[in-house]
């Protein structure tokens, strides 16, 4: 309301207008969830290599203590959400559609919630160098909270390789139901902006655009007011349209520039971060608190009391549901994240992880699941796709098994936003086709890699065999020769002896 709109906005292609359903939880202030009985903290809560455990069974840890360190360039450490005793390091069902188990640290809270005290917070983080900021962000285990869970420090280091000029704060929260970013922006605008300013410093950019969709007027107002303290940060109101929050489309809306295919927004000088990430940066640098909890929207018509909860990482989902009064009715689907891009969950035992921004229990009526029919080529999906793809043809090719064709049609440019499947009157699970194909392609690539490897091995082996054979032959020849020489010598000797005789 009354929010200043900075520049003219640019149009993006496609997109859809799903019912945003945010009223269910938008007015619920963020509440802190009581500490559960047990925490299950997976070692992999981010994109990249899994963290390496640093604790052993039976060890007592303090809140914020490092539980597992990162390994490799793209990875993130994991910290203890509270103080307590390590019950074990082993397999536990992952927060993932597959229901597979992953290595997880199980922590039994001792109820004291005692902080470790070794990292003294810096007085004024703005005196830190950009390198130092991103180092601390990395140490705090901060990953992108907008869903991608990419280690944020890596993104903050992008200034080394790209000429950056703008940081965009992604407050679009374009997924229906989700209100966690909305609540954060309403409740902690100045903390967020502080984090933003730190990130801008780390990136070395002058201009910061804080983009918020127009269906969150209170958040817009709160941020607009807080920006008065930050002259280089500008609040921008966005039209409400899914997937406005996709970083490439967000950037296009703001600047009119398209990110090159297979490239990063940094290619055009822009880095995008989520608002919750900014808050985490603030917490890490001002208070020395690593990323150990996050805000989760619990919503959906099957939930008794939809809420926004601040939850320690590793809390089983059943605790969240219980805290929200349980089910109104048996949900038809239990989803992590928003209804457009979220993942179905195999059970309520799985823990909250760094990337969980929503837990939705949806009723049959909300899902609008229909019987799958053949594609009628209505082109709704073509019109809806924000990436200019032809989903129906990609899906048809995938169904017919010609994955290469679907790649030629642009499969790898698909951002899996789900707009196409949302509008499809035939209820075709288009996104699943694409996900399947992407996975299958990756698996084939692995196969091919392995084949190259085995080919090398096989060749090496046959060479070795050859060498062995040759060596044997040579040895034999040598022996033969030796024998002959010996014989000859003997013969000579005897001859000589005879001659002598």
């Amino acid at each position, binding site marked *: 309301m009354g929010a200043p709109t900075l520049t003219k906005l640019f149009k993006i292609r496609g997109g859809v207008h799903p019912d945003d359903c945010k009223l269910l939880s938008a007015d619920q202030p963020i509440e802190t969830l009581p500490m559960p009985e047990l925490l299950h903290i997976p070692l992999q809560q981010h994109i990249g290599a899994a963290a390496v455990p640093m604790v052993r069974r039976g060890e007592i840890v303090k809140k914020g203590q490092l539980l597992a360190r990162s390994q490799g360039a793209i990875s993130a450490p994991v910290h203890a959400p509270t103080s307590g005793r390590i019950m074990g390091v082993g397999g536990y069902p992952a927060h993932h559609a597959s229901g597979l188990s992953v290595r997880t640290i199980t922590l039994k809270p001792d109820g004291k919630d005692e902080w470790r005290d070794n990292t003294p917070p810096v007085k004024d983080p703005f005196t830190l160098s950009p390198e130092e900021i991103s180092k601390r962000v990395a140490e705090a285990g901060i990953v992108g909270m907008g869903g991608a869970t990419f280690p944020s420090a890596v993104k903050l280091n992008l200034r080394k390789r790209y000429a950056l000029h703008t940081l965009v704060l992604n407050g679009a929260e374009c997924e229906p139901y989700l209100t966690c970013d909305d609540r954060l922006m309403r409740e902690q605008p100045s903390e967020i902006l502080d984090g933003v300013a730190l990130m801008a410093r780390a990136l070395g950019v002058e201009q910061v655009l804080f983009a918020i969709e127009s269906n969150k007027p209170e958040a817009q107002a709160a941020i607009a007011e807080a920006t008065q303290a930050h002259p280089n940060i500008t609040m921008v109101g966005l039209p409400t349209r899914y997937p406005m929050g996709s970083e490439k489309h967000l950037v296009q809306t703001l600047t009119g520039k398209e990110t090159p295919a297979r490239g990063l927004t940094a290619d055009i000088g822009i880095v995008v971060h989520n608002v919750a990430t900014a808050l985490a940066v603030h917490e890490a640098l001002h208070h020395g608190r690593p990323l150990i909890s996050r805000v989760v929207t619990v919503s959906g018509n099957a939930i008794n009391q939809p809420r926004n909860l601040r939850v320690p990482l590793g809390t089983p989902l059943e605790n969240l549901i219980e805290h929200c009064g349980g089910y109104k009715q048996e949900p038809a689907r239990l989803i992590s994240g928003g209804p457009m891009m979220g993942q179905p969950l195999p059970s309520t035992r799985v823990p909250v992880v760094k990337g969980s921004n929503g837990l939705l229990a949806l009723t049959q009526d909300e899902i609008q699941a229909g019987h799958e029919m053949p594609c009628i080529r209505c082109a709704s999906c073509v019109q809806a796709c924000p990436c200019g793809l032809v989903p129906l043809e990609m899906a048809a090719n995938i169904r017919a*098994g010609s994955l290469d064709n679907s790649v030629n049609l642009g499969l790898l440019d698909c951002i899996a936003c789900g707009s196409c499947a949302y509008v499809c009157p035939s209820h075709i699970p288009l996104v699943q086709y694409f996900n399947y194909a992407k*996975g299958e392609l990756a698996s084939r690539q692995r196969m091919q890699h*392995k084949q190259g490897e*085995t080919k090398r*091995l096989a060749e*090496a082996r046959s060479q070795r065999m050859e060498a062995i054979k040759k060596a044997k032959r040579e040895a034999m020849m040598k022996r033969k020769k030796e024998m002959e020489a010996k014989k000859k010598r003997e013969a000579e000797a005897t001859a000589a002896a005879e001659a002598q005789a």
Partner: protein
Amino acid sequence: MTAAILIITALGIAMGTMLGVAARYLAVEDNPLVGEIEELLPGSQCGQCGYPGCTPAAEAVANGEAPVTMCPPGGKALVESLAEKLGVSVDLSDVDEKQPMIAFVHENFCIGCTKCFKRCPTDAILGGPKQIHAVFSDACTGCEKCVDVCPTECIELRVIKPTLQTWYWPEPSKAA
């Protein structure tokens, strides 16, 4: 009528000369197809195709004697690339992809006879004489050669389990 015969004969001779000349001066060497195909094949010389190795298999494919679907280890991806190379169309739905398997040595029964080790075409089995042998999963192609030679029948092929990194959505039409 003799004129007719003469003229057509002349035409025939002229044409024949033309083709003869063309064949001489426009000759092209044999196609390098075999080599190219061999490049594509897995190269593990496992013999599952029914040919003694990948080179004979490549020759057979190039001569059209073997179908592009002949190599089980290559899977669908290989079929596709072969079909592309040869310009033929195949019905991929007929190629049922064998689930990738790897060998697994039951350590309790392994007597360290090294028979499997000698048999494995990709050196995927590690271990010396009288030691317990283990399978190096990244190198094993699941060719089953080691299974038969083991005197204690302690080698078994197992389906490779997906991990979070390798799991992906099933194809919708095949999903439950």
